[in-house]
């Protein structure tokens, strides 16, 4: 089995939004974000539960990108929407269908080492893999690979905030990696 750092998915940010927004546009923008960065993409779950006061929607995305033959980056996105209703609004003089809902988006990340399980079959190889990750790769994992993945996942969160027109948006850390 491959090794993961951090061992469990680490949620780096939670965004909550309540109001009227274009969910279809947000969905497409985020999907494009992964596509532009050459991530493989898996929509693991799409749950739509119709309720009297408004539907409940849950979506899980797992996206991954192979950085080297040994390291794979994972970015996870979890959407949870409550009171999901279609509403019609007038924007720039035109009628448009949008969504009114309470929404939670969680962003998480993980790094997977030896994702092809090539260092798995003997105890010696497994030990060698451990030493390689813990000692030889340690600094690179902390300062290069981990940091880059951390800030790139943050950039996706920034893109979401910008799309939703949230007030707490700033581009100060955008040039990191």
């Amino acid at each position, binding site marked *: 089995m491959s090794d993961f*750092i*951090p*061992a469990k998915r*680490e949620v*780096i*940010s*939670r*965004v*909550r*939004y*309540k*109001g*009227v927004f274009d969910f279809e546009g947000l969905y497409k923008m985020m999907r494009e974000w992964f596509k532009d960065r050459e991530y493989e993409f898996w929509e693991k779950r799409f749950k739509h539960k119709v309720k009297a006061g408004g539907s409940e929607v849950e979506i899980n995305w797992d996206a991954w990108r192979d950085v080297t033959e040994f390291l794979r980056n994972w970015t996870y996105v979890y959407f949870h929407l409550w009171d999901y209703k279609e509403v019609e609004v007038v924007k720039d003089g035109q009628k448009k269908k949008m969504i009114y809902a309470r929404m939670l988006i969680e962003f998480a990340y993980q790094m997977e080492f030896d994702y092809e399980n090539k260092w798995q079959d003997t105890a010696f190889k497994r030990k060698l893999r451990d030493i390689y990750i813990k000692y030889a790769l340690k600094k690179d994992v*902390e*300062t290069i690979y*981990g*940091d880059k*993945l*951390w*800030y790139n996942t*943050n950039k996706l*969160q920034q893109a979401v*905030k910008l799309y*939703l027109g*949230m*007030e*707490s*948006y*700033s581009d*100060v*850390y955008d040039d990191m990696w």
Partner: protein
Amino acid sequence: MVSWGGGEKQKFVNKAFTFEGLFSYKDFFRILDVWLRDKFYDKFEKRNEEFVKPDGSKQIDIELTPWKKTTDYYKLTMKIEIIVSNLREVEIEQDGRKIRLQRGKIDAKIGGYLYVDYEGRWATPVQYFIRDIFDRYVNSRITKKYYDMAIDDVTDLYNTLTSYLNMYQYKMA
């Protein structure tokens, strides 16, 4: 990248302020981010909530826990909690020009923490004892340096944010 090790978190300082009046929230948030970046803090925006109410006003609730690894042993962390309530767009006239600002109430809390042994290498009771004695008596000057840095950083951020909000003029009156 955030550390996935253990370590001991020690809290040293906590400051809070409340402001009600005119400001630009985008500028306020940007000033906070610029300050963190200038002081080499890594960004960790743990929670960011925004609720748009039917009357158009907004409620914002954010929690940031930026950190800075100063050595392999010491790490500074802050916990910044900001609640903005009744945020509304307003247009004011200044020097004959119209400016768009916001009116609302800000409640902010800033806490400063020092993590010692953040990679959790000294975890057993014996190791913990040796480490703590070493920190207190042998390495006390270095440990104090980072205690002071945590306190200075919180104070400086507090001063930066309150200066932006022109809170000193209210204090002087």
